[in-house]
């Protein structure tokens, strides 16, 4: 009787899962899932889909039997979505990953060795992508990623505001001292009610996980770094790091040229800048794009390098790369798609609609309708890229969790950096990773 009961249970179970078993196999079409962040029109997913629509259509027409299933993931959800995707048995096939997340997946062995998958394509791309970028696609000696897109921070300023306070709009601040002088002049109470209506320099200083990016420019400018040379400890808990965080804090609390800490995150700060409530801010080149200018026709935009720090004239820069999952079930189809999206024709079509720069030297990064982008392209060599540590995203998060309280005055700068140092040292010692992935 017991055996019969078990038999019945088994039959019922098999019947209940049979639809899944019946329809899961036997697919003739290779479906390549392609995940990407939005880079067109102020990071909107919809416009990103629109740009890719015709490119995907052409690829599918030229490659019958391969379908592209694209997913645009907002950057706020990127880390969670990627972790869940790569942590599952069916990760996405081809993915765009910014550097802050890339090396975690490389270290976990989740990325395909592209040299092995398509040696000819890698050789061709290596010839047209600068070595500096190309090396960033390597982990532990393997080419696991293809550098695809670069970006970084510049000083955005409102020329009209400059003229209104007697500053020359063609002569933006070039160092920290001038930044304070300019920002103080630009911080104004316009209606005489005793409240600031226009802020001189906007510092995004909320607990948002990516607000820390804006601080790194100042840290590097002061001569400190996120990690030490061999990644065995932090590189910021020193006099230079203290100088950087102190200056950042002073902009908000001493000079009062930025909205109070916690008020506006990066996205809100951009809105304030575009709406003329903030006169200067550190921003990515995408916001010089056509859509920002069309939506704010009265904005007289000026762009310049971020003011130099006491040690270095630099700003945060970043690279986004294309990877293939090591678990892909359609390696050949995935590599065909990778080859296609790295072709000059596709890159040219894409960059005509985005305000970023391609990494291929034989593809023009010039924008037909964004003179600012072309101007900024001449300065990209002043970028500092962050250390390519597998726990970079975690380091960013934990650093900011401990350092941000200094901007509220609830911790001293020294204490905040000491706490951040403890947290980051704990992370790097847990990881044990070394430069180059060795």
């Amino acid at each position, binding site marked *: *009787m017991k055996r*019969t009961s078990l038999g019945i249970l088994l039959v019922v179970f098999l019947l209940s899962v049979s639809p899944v078993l019946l329809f899961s196999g036997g697919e003739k079409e290779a479906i390549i899932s392609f995940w990407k962040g939005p880079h067109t029109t102020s990071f909107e997913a919809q416009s990103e889909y629109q740009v890719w629509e015709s490119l995907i259509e052409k690829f599918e027409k030229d490659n019958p039997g391969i379908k592209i299933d694209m997913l645009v993931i907002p950057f706020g959800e990127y880390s969670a979505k990627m*972790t869940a995707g790569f942590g599952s048995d069916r990760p996405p096939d081809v993915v765009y990953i910014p550097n802050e997340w890339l090396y*975690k997946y490389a270290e976990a062995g989740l990325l395909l060795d592209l040299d092995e998958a398509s040696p000819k394509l890698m050789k061709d791309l290596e010839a047209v992508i600068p070595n500096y970028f190309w090396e960033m696609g390597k982990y532990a000696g393997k080419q696991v990623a293809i550098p695809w897109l670069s970006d970084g921070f510049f000083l955005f300023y409102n020329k009209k505001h400059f003229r209104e306070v007697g500053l020359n709009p063609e002569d933006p601040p070039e160092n920290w001292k001038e930044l304070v002088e300019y920002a103080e002049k630009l911080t104004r109470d316009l209606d005489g009610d005793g409240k600031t209506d226009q802020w001189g320099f906007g510092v995004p200083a909320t*607990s948002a996980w990516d607000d820390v990016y804006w601080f790194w420019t100042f840290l590097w400018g002061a001569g400190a770094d996120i990690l030490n040379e061999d990644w065995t400890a932090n590189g910021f808990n020193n006099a230079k790091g203290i100088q950087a965080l102190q200056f950042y804090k002073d902009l908000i609390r001493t000079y009062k040229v930025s*909205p109070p*800490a*916690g008020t506006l995150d990066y996205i809100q700060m951009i809105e304030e800048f575009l709406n003329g409530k903030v006169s200067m801010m550190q921003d990515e080149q995408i916001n010089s794009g056509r859509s920002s200018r069309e939506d704010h026709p009265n904005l007289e935009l000026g762009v310049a390098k971020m003011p130099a720090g006491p040690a270095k004239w630099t700003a945060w820069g970043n690279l986004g790369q294309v990877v293939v999952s090591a678990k892909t079930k359609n390696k050949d189809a995935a590599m065909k798609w990778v080859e296609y999206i790295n072709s000059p024709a596709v890159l040219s079509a894409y960059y005509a609609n985005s305000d970023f720069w391609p990494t291929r030297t034989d593809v023009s990064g010039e924008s037909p309708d964004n003179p600012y982008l072309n101007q900024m392209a001449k300065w990209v060599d002043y970028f500092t890229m962050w250390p390519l540590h597998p726990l970079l995203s975690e380091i960013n998060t934990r650093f900011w969790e401990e350092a941000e309280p200094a901007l509220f005055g609830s911790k001293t700068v020294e204490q905040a950096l000491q706490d951040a140092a403890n947290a980051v040292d704990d992370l790097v010692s847990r990881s044990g990773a070394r430069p180059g992935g060795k």
Partner: protein
Amino acid sequence: MLGRSLTRTFNLLSVFVNRKTIYYLFLLPAIIPFVTFVLIPFLYTFSLTFRTGDLLKLGQFVGLNNYIRIIHDDTFRKAVVNTVQFVILIVPAELLLSLLLSLILSQRLRFGGTTQAILFIPWIIPITIIAVIWRFLLYPQQGIINYLIGLVGIPPQTWLASESLALPTLVVIEMWRGIGFFVMVWYAAIIEIPRDIYEYAILEGANTFQKLVRITLPLIRPTFIFLVIISIIWAFQLFDSVFVLTHGGPNKATFSAVYYIYRYTFHVGDVGLASTMSFALLGMVLLLTLIIRRLTKEQLQS
């Protein structure tokens, strides 16, 4: 119709197996999803509390180390304190306000249905839209709320950027979101009370207050207990408004327990610590629920 076909199936199966097995077979559609989506993830998460590493690459077995770590973890303590403060602030306020509103609505006023619908709208609005609405309302410089308090001489506040105001502001936002649901449940319980009890009380000379205290409140006690438990559980799960409005800030003032779990799972990559926190949170909610059930057991039985 359904009953007849179930009986026929039952009779057919009983030829092959005994009755007890058939009962279990009928439970399978509920048991399979429960085991797949609740029990296995629950046990897996529990196993993670003894490990280090992230979801991509689990680290070594560390025994009870994660439990010891959360005891000494300042951020964990802060997250628990914030969450408990949030629960203490929102649960009584939301229950009382919604009860009051539903008592008013139960008087069958004109536009009562419209009012109920208006109250319910925030419950169905996506959190991203709510974030846009409240950011606009709370904006320090040109926000409507600062304008309104300015009319009575109160200086403008940085509602979500102030360490002392951010959590109470989230309480108000979450109350605004949830009040429609609570009003609806209270209202349903109140209108279920037979009218003749009130009519009899009126004949006996009971006034409005006596009717409320002697009839309405005792008869909606089961609803009260349900709403207390559900509101405590929801309040302990505070996450989405923190995620979109404050990111746990300023200075961790709104860092909630669930936000801690999310952040340490996906941004700090310490899934062992996050899982341990999940179990600590589960323990807290379970304990509170048991206490409430114990305290209200006799009342419910009576």
